[in-house]
């Protein structure tokens, strides 16, 4: 709970910094503060419980995911030091909004009440609508912000409608009470409105995690948003949304999971197929990462489908592996894009010669995303597949296995561009912050890949 309170305070402090003209100190201060909040979060490990008449519930699941989200936030904030160096006028606004996004994510990971779920999603989304459109004079960024807002508003509507229907049936917003209601009633005696409500909520959540067939916003929004925000969206938002989805189903809908199972299976297969096949033809790196994100959502849905065998730790491990690989990739891509003024995959041409270190870091991130050992992406896939098989979803797992073969192809396309094609001679100046972040991410990918017990025994 303290994690959430301190993070919110940090956001407010950022806004105040504008008044007291503390912009220069702001980024180091935020980085230190987030590190401190990470420590606070760590202290909460053994002090779980419910707060504010059971609106928020802190347990191992929420603390572990919050820690992951804070680390992602930290990495992004370190990169802002260089990314926003020419926009000192807006720096405190941007930082404040990003911190509020983080707050939204923290709420989504620790809610115990439908109202809090909605609040968390809205805090997160509204901040992101602004950030997606934050390049005000770039039409693409405007388009991204607007599109995300319109589609997101509909999704929120679905969510609210779903919550309302479920409230109508169960007479409660409280997750645990709804869960008890489901357990105490025979599946046939529950009103059909409950199932409709559940389905509507599912649609909204699938929208947020960018799973097919509700993925159409993500390539456009990822492409149009500033690259740093794309990195933020593809990792933090997706993971927070998956945490929320898991929490919702694990506490509320466990008894009725079988009713939406086929829907989830279809969504997973569609995400895997659409994500991977469409990614094959992408020439823009951000769009490629968007489709890769859709396919990763498909893998993570496997974890949700078989959640009755206890997939929380597998999902957590997968999320961590995915996040570090993706941020590692973006930490290399952002400075390269900036130097080349272009965001296609061809900007990486010849990077292997120009900057062997960056090329090696990006290669390792890509290999982790493709699921090649010894990187954590491999064990993440392994855990998810293994749980899905344990849950009895053999065919689905085979589809996922085939999908990851296709996946390897487009991740290698980036690697091929770096090592086999000749690029122009534009000098690439890389600020040390990006290298630091990328090295950290790749190291984490390796360490987690070699010692997965660190995370797997948490939840």
């Amino acid at each position, binding site marked *: 709970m303290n994690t959430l309170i301190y993070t919110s305070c940090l956001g407010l402090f950022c806004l105040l910094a504008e008044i007291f003209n503390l912009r220069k100190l702001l980024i180091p201060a935020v980085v230190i503060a987030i590190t401190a909040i990470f420590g606070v979060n760590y202290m909460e490990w053994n002090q779980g419980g419910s707060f504010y008449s059971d609106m928020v519930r802190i347990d191992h699941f929420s603390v572990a995911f919050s820690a992951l989200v804070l680390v992602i936030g930290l990495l992004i904030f370190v990169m802002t030091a260089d990314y926003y160096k020419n926009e000192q006028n807006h720096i405190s606004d941007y930082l404040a909004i990003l911190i509020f996004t983080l707050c939204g994510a923290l709420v989504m990971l620790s809610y115990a009440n439908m109202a809090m779920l909605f609040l968390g999603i809205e805090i997160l989304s509204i901040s992101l609508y602004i950030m997606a459109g934050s390049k005000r004079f770039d039409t693409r960024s405007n388009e991204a912000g607007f599109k995300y807002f319109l589609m997101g508003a509909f999704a929120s509507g679905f969510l609210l409608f779903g919550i309302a229907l479920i409230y109508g049936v169960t007479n409660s917003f409280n997750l645990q009470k709804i869960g008890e209601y489901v357990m105490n009633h025979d599946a046939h005696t529950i009103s059909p409105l409950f199932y409709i409500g559940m389905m509507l909520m599912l649609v909204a959540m699938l929208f947020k995690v960018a799973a097919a067939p509700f993925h159409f916003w993500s390539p456009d929004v990822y492409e149009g948003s500033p690259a740093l925000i794309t990195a933020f969206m593809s990792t933090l938002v997706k993971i927070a949304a998956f945490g929320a989805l898991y929490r919702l189903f694990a506490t509320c809908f466990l008894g009725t999971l079988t009713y939406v199972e086929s829907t989830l299976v279809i969504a997973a297969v569609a995400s895997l197929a659409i994500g991977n096949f469409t990614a094959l033809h992408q020439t823009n790196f951000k769009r490629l990462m968007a489709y890769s994100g859709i396919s990763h959502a498909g893998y993570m849905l496997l974890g949700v489908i078989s959640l009755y065998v206890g997939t929380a*730790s597998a999902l957590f491990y997968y999320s961590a592996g995915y996040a570090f690989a993706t941020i590692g990739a973006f930490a290399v891509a952002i400075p390269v894009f900036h130097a080349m003024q272009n965001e296609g995959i061809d900007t990486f041409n010849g990077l*292997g010669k120009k900057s062997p270190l960056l090329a090696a870091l990006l290669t390792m991130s890509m*290999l982790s995303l493709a699921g*090649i*050992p*010894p990187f954590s992406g*491999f064990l993440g896939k*392994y*855990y998810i*597949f*293994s749980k899905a*098989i*344990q849950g009895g979803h053999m065919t689905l*797992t*085979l589809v996922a*296995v*085939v999908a*990851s*073969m296709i996946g*390897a*192809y487009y991740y*290698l396309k980036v690697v*091929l561009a770096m*090592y*086999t094609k000749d690029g122009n001679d534009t000098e690439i100046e890389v600020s040390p912050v990006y290298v630091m972040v990328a090295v950290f991410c790749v190291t984490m990918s390796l360490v987690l890949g070699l010692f*997965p*017990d660190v995370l*797997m*025994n948490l939840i």
Partner: protein
Amino acid sequence: MIITLLLLGFPLVASLLVLAAGHKFASKLALVLSVVQLGITGYAYCLYKQQGAEAFYFFHEWISNPKISFHLGLDGLSLLMVALTNFLTPLIILSAFNRKVERAAGYFSLILLMQFALNGVFMAMDGMLYYIFWELALIPIYFIALRWGGPNRVPVTLKFFIYTLAGSLLMLFGFIMLYWYNPNQSFDIRDLYNAAICSCKQGWLFWTFFLAFAIKIPIVPFHTWQADTYKEAPTQGTMLLSGIMLKMGTYSLLRWLLPILPAGVAEWGPLAITLCVIGIVYASVIAIMQQDLKKLLAYSSVAHVGLISAGIFALNMQGFQGSVVQMLAHGVNVVGLFFCADIILNRTNTLNINSLGGIRNLAPKFNTLFMIVVLGSVALPLTNGFIGEFLLLFGVYEYNTWLSVFAGLTIILGAVYMLRMFQRTMLGNVNENITTFPDLMWNEKIVLGVIAAVIILLGIYPKPIFDIAEPALQLILDKSIIK
């Protein structure tokens, strides 16, 4: 204990050292370190002679859930494969001397990294650990072929990578299923050997493993990645691929497929062995038609490993022993052959057999050594190839007479394409395209000399190999046959 870790870890350390050494000293340092690794292997051999396989047992809990352990071991079979790897690596590194290698530090570092992964594959006694090394071996060879390969390397290496990765992922799926099906729920080889999985499930589990191995070996019709990859990879990459990496597949058949899924093998083994024999004839015929020296060698390699796999699926001691001897023999011979091809390419800039000829007159030393390697690979008696092929054919004959008749064609067809190739390139009048052909340089003499010596020594006295392999193979044979 310690020797096991040293044997595994030293190439990794060596790889990092070479990367740090810089381009100038990379090749020399790599050679020295790989010779040291060979020395460690020699020590391991002595230790094995004294104490047997127990001396190499290493077990450490690694991941608790699912249960994955860092379990290494070295029985006779593994020891021979490790010895092959560590014997060939210094030769492969030495073969790159006196050649211009760009970005040398990366190149030699990757070769040593490859050695590390290969040693890991042969020593891992835990399914998941084995799988990780298996995949890890793909990464260095991919980059070697991609960065130092021929003009058409990009699509070819991509095909190679995706093809083998597809097989590997199926195997991963198979391993996960094995994990859940075995009563102890672990990947440890001892648990898997005693799992006694229901024979109704073994049929399709067989295919998840067999496809992965069949692609790597390669067994016809899963060989289509191979010839192009051999052609486009740099010579050292081709040597690694054909000399050692193919043996990963045949070794894995023995180690992981047969003993764990005996009922699956009983069900599908006949089909598999038929595919192997078809592959022998098919690849031999294609090899006869080849004009490109490297491609010819690639197809001859398909034929040879087809026979090795056929001997393994024959499920008898002769076949097993033959396959082990032939794995070693083929590893040594094919490295020699590709090196000869490299020597020719290096001096004449062509590998087209039609524009070669008469090299014997210009380079007699090269001619002699090339001849010995060729004779080894056509299985002339008193060369290493003969022992292996004879035992393999004997094993296949015990299994089924008709299959052995077709498999026996390999000796005739092999002689046809190898001797024809030798005649067209080395004998006759000097082709007008060749103006000069300097004889062997010092490093080439050492590499080919050592290989020729091994070919003859093993051909005359192969008994040590039988002695080392026997207990391990007997254990595998007992597990592979359903009583």
